């Protein structure tokens, strides 16, 4: 009971911090980054190929005129999607691991 509340609190506070950062993302520097700068200086940037499809390219939510709003929306979408994805993956990993440990015969040499 108590631990359940602890975990919900942890997720709420943690996601709150991440969403707070996402709201600040329009302040990010738009200068070319490390690899991009090297590619530009050493003239292989034009070898980059466009993606075969686009969902939220350049961290701008599609169909939103205001670039700052589009950036924040892209950040919120990314934060929520990656959090759900990772929570599900971690939950499944832990669950399958516990099931395997509950059946020691299915893991020969598993626990040494």
């Amino acid at each position, binding site marked *: 009971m108590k631990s359940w509340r602890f975990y919900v609190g942890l997720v709420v506070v943690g996601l709150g911090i991440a969403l707070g950062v996402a709201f600040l993302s329009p302040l990010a520097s738009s200068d*070319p980054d490390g690899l991009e700068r090297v590619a530009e200086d050493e003239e292989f940037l034009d070898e980059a190929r466009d993606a075969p499809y686009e969902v939220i390219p350049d961290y701008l939510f599609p169909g939103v005129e205001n670039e700052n709003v589009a950036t924040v929306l892209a950040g919120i979408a*990314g934060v929520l999607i990656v959090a759900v994805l990772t929570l599900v993956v*971690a*939950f499944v990993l832990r669950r399958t691991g516990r099931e395997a440990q509950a059946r020691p015969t299915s893991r020969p040499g598993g626990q040494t």
Partner: protein
Amino acid sequence: MAAVDPSALTAIEAPAMHIPDGFVSGPVAGAGFALAGVAIAVAVRATNRSLGERAVPLMGVMAAFIFAVQMMNFPVAGGTSGHLLGGALAAILLGPWAAIIVMTSVVGLQALLFQDGGLAALGDNIFNMAIITAFVGYGVYWAFAQFAHIGPWVRLAGAFAAAWLSVQLAALATTFELVLSDTSPLSVALPAMMGVHALIGIGEGLITVAAVAFVLATRRDLLEAEVAVSEV
């Protein structure tokens, strides 16, 4: 020097070390998928066995936080920017195996949904930013943590060193992928990549130290517990 097509400049506004398609050759991309696949398979087995109860919410929160902070490009010298990779931070707080899972979901989502980093180059990008950073970050921090009895600053120094070195080795791996793909000669790519990322690594170090200090100050038990758990 008119070799750079201006439209290509605006086409790729991708944060730091994410390799777009076209920079790496087929064999280098394939090798990246193979290496990343092996490491992820080992990480899945290891987390299967050792994942603690509180690791599940922590992993979700860590992935969300790293995704958000990766969007915050900070300026470094000469009109260049960099951003957090986060693999060292995740490894310090969660151990290397859980960090690989967390970073793989961040980097994978960036490629699939945000077109940040190419699809063919995804294996290389996961290898550089999820696997190398997790192992280097954890190893360096762990070495410092052996001397934690000297004072609390040792952990923070370890976090900085872990973060900085993780960026250097990720940049080194990226360099060799570019060189092996005949995209750029070693004599050019190596000093350029390492020079820029020596600066970007300072930003990585400062953010990692701040985050580790925050956890040490607020929920020290999380850090201690998770490092102990992952030292199996």
